[in-house]
């Protein structure tokens, strides 16, 4: 520590400098007070010269005030969030327009009504299916399977993805295979699964896993790849071991990419599930939306087919709107990544 008493320390206690007029003058006076041999420096130049070279504040309290002032000048005022109605009304308007076009096309009578049913016919069929309890059963069966399959996929894919992203030899060895699996349509697994597991739920889950797991792993890996290298350096400097680095730094840093992978993983789960349900019907496999769709095809009932398609689409949209969109928005906002986007 320096041995000459510093003007700052000498003129402490912090509370002491009363709001006197010389508060904002550079440290000359305080310094002169400490060193009797010092010559008066009143003429030693304009304060602006001092700025970069000597002390610019006259004490702790002065420094605190200056910083507080600068902080408030440099921080943005908090903007109040309000409900943006266009976010709700625009999608509804788009939907109405599409249904109107559909109705208009049907009313032209270009095609037979049983081949291209109108919106009202499909709505009527939905009502009938609801009355029979078939609709609830199909949606529930599929949704349950989709979610369970997806959650198990997440539980498997997350540690595997982290391991692959962190251990270079593993990544080099298995990376291409995982990417390849993502390209392979999971429907391709249905025949194999039927031979191995028969017409049971195991078949359905197997196909869902093969669809979702590679895509979640890939999302996580690409999320990890996009982490600024600085974060790892900071982790090392702060003394994180491998496990702490993976769980407390790499995983949260990769979260935006990981979430993208989860979204895609869900989409793949849902698609694979529908494919499996359409192809593998009967046995102990329950009655899902895919089964409903296939039943409509067998009966050549276009209203059932379209109702099933719209229900599959509807579930997908609902999950996106109610689950993923809020999580993603929160995540991005908390990291300051949302300003200026069109979301």
């Amino acid at each position: 520590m320096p041995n000459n008493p510093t003007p700052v320390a000498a003129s402490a206690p912090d509370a002491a400098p009363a709001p006197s007029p010389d508060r904002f003058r550079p440290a000359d006076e305080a310094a002169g007070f400490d060193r009797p041999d010092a010559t008066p420096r009143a003429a030693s130049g304009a304060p602006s010269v001092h700025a970069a070279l000597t002390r610019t504040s006259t004490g702790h309290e002065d420094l605190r005030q200056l910083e507080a002032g600068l902080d408030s000048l440099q921080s943005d005022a908090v903007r109040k969030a309000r409900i943006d109605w266009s976010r709700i009304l625009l999608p509804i308007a788009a939907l109405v327009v599409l249904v109107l076009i559909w109705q208009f096309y049907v009313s032209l009578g270009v095609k037979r009504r049983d081949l291209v049913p109108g919106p009202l016919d499909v709505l009527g069929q939905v009502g009938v299916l609801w009355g029979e309890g078939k609709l609830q059963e199909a949606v529930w069966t599929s949704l349950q399977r989709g979610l369970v399959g997806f959650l198990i996929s997440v539980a498997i894919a997350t540690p595997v993805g982290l391991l692959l992203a962190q251990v270079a030899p593993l990544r080099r060895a298995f990376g291409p295979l995982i990417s390849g699996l993502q390209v392979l349509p999971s429907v391709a697994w249905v025949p194999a699964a039927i031979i191995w597991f028969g017409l049971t739920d195991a078949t359905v889950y197997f196909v869902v896993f093969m669809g979702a797991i590679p895509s979640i792993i890939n999302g996580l890996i690409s999320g990890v790849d996009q982490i600024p290298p600085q974060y790892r350096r900071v982790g090392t400097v702060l003394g994180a071991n491998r496990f702490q680095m993976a769980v407390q730094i790499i995983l949260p840093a990769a979260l935006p990419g990981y979430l993208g992978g989860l979204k895609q993983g869900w989409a793949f789960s849902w698609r694979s599930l529908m494919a499996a349900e359409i192809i593998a019907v009967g046995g102990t496999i329950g009655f899902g939306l895919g089964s409903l769709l296939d039943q409509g095809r067998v009966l050549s009932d276009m209203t059932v087919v379209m109702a099933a398609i719209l229900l599959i689409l509807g579930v997908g949209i609902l999950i996106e709107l109610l689950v993923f969109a809020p999580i993603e928005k929160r995540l991005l906002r908390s990291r300051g990544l949302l300003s200026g986007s069109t979301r």
Partner: protein
Amino acid sequence: MPVVLENLGKRFGDGAPVLDDVNATIASGEFVALLGASGCGKSTLLNIMAGLEAPTSGALEVPSDGAAFMFQDAALFPWLTARENIELALQLRGVGKAERRAKANELLELVHLGGAGDKRPHELSGGMRQRVSLARSLAQDRQLLLMDEPFAALDAITRDLLHDELERIWKETGRTIVFVTHNVREAVRLGQRVLLLSSRPGRVVEEWAVTEEHRTDAGLAGQLTGVITARLREEIRRHAK
């Protein structure tokens, strides 16, 4: 415990040496400014002192518990609040959960950010982020604090204030600070000693003592700045072909 660098050399692969025969002794509690133009291996030297890289020749003596490090960009984790960033450093150091919060608040108070603990990094100004970063490096509780151009990206007003702030904190905490910069004024403003590194290879070519008089007398400080700048330019001119 002092930091001693003896005939330290570093080269990457077969390339020309980045550092060659660097000798320096830094006393405990000293504030040393390491000055040099681009390509003088300042950052490499810091990395070696921090244990992030190994020297290819020579020996160095650093505190066994390692060093705290502060980077040019604040490098705060965006998914944590200011306080949580500091708490993470404490946690990785092994501080118990109960103690962490109080200690983090104390450190925030030290850098005059008592009210900003719950803000995320993107809600803070550049100067505030750098102060959180300073608090985080203090949370590491190492005697040796290495700073790699921490104020280079800040505006002049903020930088002047942070110079005062850093000097105050240095005096309060008694840390040994090695401060890398390419700004002569900054080196004179902060260091007790200014070491000039040559470029390609990096080597300590000259050093100046900065006294308490220089802190308050702009004329003296200006004079010293002029001398050091002249020497630095001489060093740069050597590389003109």
